[in-house]
């Protein structure tokens, strides 16, 4: 974990945006011994249409609770991409649900990675776990948190009956991300290829 990493996760209401953020925060704060502060967008627009959460991870207690320029932006809807992409920090990481987000123009200097999370979730038989697929993918491409800590946080955040399914979803997303990273490393042109991958 780094001194201070700011993350925004956004998408439609019902995609599990808040739970995804909570899993990441819990992994850092409880299973990796660091600090995490999660806040949610509670604007009137968050009831229904769009949903957005912010997580700050740190090795020290967090004082300021809000995220202005995220280091990592995870988007699961076109609207979320349009709204939040301009805020991404130069040199930051963009993670997209690649079949729900069409990226016509990348913010400058950003590393971008895409995953067909909804389709991967459907392969597991339950579309609702797409958020946990995203968390797994996020874990692999950002390498911010110990994968074990993330996995424990997933198990700790869902009802016992759904643990197995959610852990499968996490693993599926993580493996997809790990394979993507390996392929990009072999190709040696990380940024360009990443861009094409998610476009």
């Amino acid at each position: 974990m780094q001194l201070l990493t700011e993350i925004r996760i956004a998408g439609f209401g019902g995609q599990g945006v808040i739970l995804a953020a909570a899993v990441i925060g819990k992994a850092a704060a409880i299973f990796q011994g660091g600090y995490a502060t999660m806040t949610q967008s509670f604007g009137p627009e968050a009831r229904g249409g769009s949903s957005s959460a912010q997580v700050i991870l740190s090795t020290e207690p967090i004082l300021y609770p809000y995220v202005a320029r995220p280091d990592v932006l995870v988007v699961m809807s076109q609207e979320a991409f349009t709204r939040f992409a301009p805020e991404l920090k130069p040199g930051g990481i963009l993670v997209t649900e690649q079949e729900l987000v069409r990226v016509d123009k990348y913010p400058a200097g950003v590393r971008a990675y895409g995953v067909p999370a909804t389709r991967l979730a459907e392969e597991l038989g339950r579309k609702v776990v797409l958020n946990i697929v995203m968390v797994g993918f996020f874990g692999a491409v950002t390498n911010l948190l110990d994968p074990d800590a993330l996995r424990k946080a997933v198990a700790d955040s869902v009802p016992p009956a759904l643990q197995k399914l959610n852990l499968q979803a996490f693993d599926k997303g993580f493996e997809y991300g790990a394979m993507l990273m390996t392929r990009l490393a072999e190709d040696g042109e990380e940024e360009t290829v990443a861009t094409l991958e998610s476009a």
Partner: protein
Amino acid sequence: MHADPKGILTGVHFLDGDHACCEGTLAAGARFAAGYPITPSTEVVERFAARIPTVGGLFIQMEDELAASIAIQGAVWGGAKAFTVTSGPGFSLMMEHIGYAAITETPCVFVNVQRGGPSTGLPTLPAQADMMQARWGSHGDYGIIALCPNSPQECFDLTITGFNLSEEFRVPVMMMLDECVGHMTEKVIIPEADAIDVTPRRYTKRTPQEFRLFEPQADQVPDMVRAGEGYRFHVTGLTHDERGYPSMNVETQDRLVRRLQDKLKPMANGRALCDTADLDDAEVVVVSYGITSRVAQRAIKLARQQGVRAGKFRLISAWPFPAGRIAALAGRIKAFVVPELNLGQMVTEVERATAGRCKVVPVSHAGGSVHNPDVILKAIVEAAR
């Protein structure tokens, strides 16, 4: 007395401030809550309603905030520890019954998760603009205690403290959260039950024949009775004598109302809950509370890095206001800087305590977000000049 393990969710959790506050009420021994839903406070009782059947107790969703704020007082006189939860508009509706709790000396807790006002204002966004209302909102002279947590962990810890103080002093205690703290999720550690101190109700040891309902003890606070154990008593919002019967004359009024304020004096002085740092060499002291104290902490750090000797004075108990401690600092610093999410409320208390002996600089914000730390930093640097 140790907490009842039944209500304690011992462990390490990732909770928002509202949920942590709910766990605090259960740990403190609350077994009754009444409320009327309002953003951003509903989550407190939503969780309580889900948890309380397994612990043994009751939640009632009432028809409105007036009903909720008086139902809890019925429960208290029936023997329960009880609380209600609301936000701005609902808090306004509860004022009448806060006065009732004050004059009947009913120990109870009002949780107010503050949002932007006035009126419906900003339902989903933070403010700290109910601070004066918490102290002065009901008519007449009385005293209350108000606590201001700045994290989910403190929402848990201070809620227990709030219940304990309400039992000790027999006053309504206001838990003054704000939307940011209420909806912020962080690690919350809930200890074992035997590591949590809970203040039991001060029940009388006297016989029904000797007992007088409002006879002040050595600390000016009267003892209570258990309902149904043979004590006949009468509780009224009218000015009453030591027996609890209406006595509407100048002498009784003076004796009762002065005592309602005086019994809280220890909380204003020695026992005020304040979090201070770097005061010894400070030239500027930042007075803040709730979420603003965290943002202020960042500004203080930045100021120190720039060579400005800034110190921290965080009000954990905002009411009674620790005027004596502020006054003691006023004589030896250049200025107080007071950031708050309102257009100037607690800053007037700082001015009053300072009595012109140093500068007092408000850093106001109408609410809807928190301060940018740079704005507080600028005020600190300018105040130090």
